């Protein structure tokens, strides 16, 4: 585990507070999408297929801050679209850091070097650049459908690290991913000096015609077991070890769809970051009026049957850590020993 103690403490005390207040549903990470516009068209992403007037839209900083306030989650993840294309990204991050929110700015890093050079950001323990890398050069450039992006992203990472920023990577894995190549990728990222890595399987609708290219549950277990059965001590993952055990099939978790709520130009997305089944005007309305029982594997909803994505299951893993002595013990053991 590579999460700093202060961040762990913030999350732990927040979760314990929710439990003491007996809140049945609480958010852990706000997924804040200030815009849908992007400078890439990745093979696994469906966020950018909108008419021009929607791609032109973006949230104001004030709208973003209201959402952060409403939600109350200790961590704010800023995906998109490409957040470095958001015109007020510097101000937004400054405001969030001032509110002591742990910010994960999820970027393809094409513009990272330019923004750093322009002094848009200042290093802070509250700010992490989470750089999208779906594997080594060949795999990543293939996934993002553009040559040279891997090298540009790595250059951005180097520059961010040189300037004292926190940097992690986020990786989505599809069917056909090679465990050995992924292990080489982990080595390369550690050599690069990133603080930690985040990995997650991709998501597909059960009805999608091309679903064979996504990882189904059994394949997900096999891939992650092969990758992580004997993790090198130097590999650092910026996520719950229990979530990694879940991906390896060593732990079974239900989805917590309200754990990573999503806010974008349409409002609060129902029910989760992955499914778009409508929008609520406020976070309270989202929590109160979404039919949560219709989602997650146990619900029988076919869209949820093969989903093992981090945004629904990592909050479950974190909640599990603080729900029982066993959960806490398992997390501590995995964190200290590095064994999964």
């Amino acid at each position: 585990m590579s999460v700093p103690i202060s961040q762990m403490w913030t999350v732990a005390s927040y979760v314990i507070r929710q439990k003491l207040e007996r809140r049945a549903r609480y958010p852990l990470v706000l997924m804040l999408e200030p815009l849908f516009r992007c400078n890439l068209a990745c093979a696994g992403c469906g966020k950018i297929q909108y008419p021009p007037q929607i791609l032109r839209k973006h949230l104001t900083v004030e709208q973003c801050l209201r959402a952060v306030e409403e939600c109350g989650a200790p961590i704010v993840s800023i995906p998109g679209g490409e957040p470095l294309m958001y015109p007020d990204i510097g101000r937004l991050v400054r405001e969030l850091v001032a509110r002591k929110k742990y910010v994960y700015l999820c970027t393809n890093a094409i513009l990272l070097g330019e923004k750093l050079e322009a002094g848009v950001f200042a290093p802070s323990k509250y700010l992490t650049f989470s750089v999208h890398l779906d594997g080594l050069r060949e795999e990543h450039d293939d996934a993002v459908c553009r040559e040279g992006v891997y090298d540009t992203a790595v250059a951005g990472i180097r520059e961010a690290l040189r300037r004292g920023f926190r940097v992690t990577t986020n990786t989505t894995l599809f069917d056909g991913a090679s465990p050995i190549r992924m292990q080489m990728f982990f080595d390369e990222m550690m050599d690069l000096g990133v603080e930690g890595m985040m990995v997650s399987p991709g998501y597909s609708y059960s009805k999608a015609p091309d679903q064979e290219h996504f990882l189904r549950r059994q394949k997900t277990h096999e891939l992650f077991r092969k990758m992580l059965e004997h993790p090198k001590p130097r590999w650092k993952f910026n996520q719950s070890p229990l979530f990694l055990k879940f991906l390896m099939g060593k732990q079974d978790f239900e989805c917590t769809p309200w754990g990573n709520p999503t806010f974008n130009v349409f409002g609060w997305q129902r029910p989760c970051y992955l499914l778009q089944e409508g929008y609520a005007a406020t976070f309270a309305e989202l929590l109160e009026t979404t039919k949560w029982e219709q989602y997650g594997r146990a619900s029988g909803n076919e869209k949820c049957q093969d989903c093992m994505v981090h945004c629904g299951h990592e909050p479950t893993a974190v909640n599990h850590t603080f729900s029982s002595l066993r959960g806490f013990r398992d997390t501590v053991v995995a964190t200290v020993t590095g064994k999964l």
Partner: protein
Amino acid sequence: MRDDDDLRASEASARSSDDLTSYGLRASEASYGHGGERGSLEGWEPVIGAEVGLEEAIDRAFDYRGDVTVVRQDGAEIVGYLFNRNAEVSRRFVQMFDRAGDGPLTIPYAEIRTIRFTGKDTAAGKSYEAWLRRKTERPTVPVVSDSAREA
């Protein structure tokens, strides 16, 4: 100027991407068999009542990744992107951003006569197979530096 460039890049990306989604993708479900590539609804003008119920037409408009034309009972038309619908409240409604991006406009179901799928389906033709085909037909696009992009 930069924003326009970014938008063009985004639109070009949208045209050249596919719907193999790791993240939420209504687009991949737009296979209703109403013509167009891979069953896109582009150009569909449903006859409400005879062909399909209003509620179903609204659901399909909600799934559609292009502009639609909402025709009110009085004949007035609103063109834009329908991003939300709520059929579980007493006064059921849809929400749209118009073609200028203004909104959201909220329209009760009761005021809608029909919906036409008039805008380009931005998700059409973006199957994984189509992406693979394009990939083999032409080399991948190299990263263009931002200074070059601005030039």
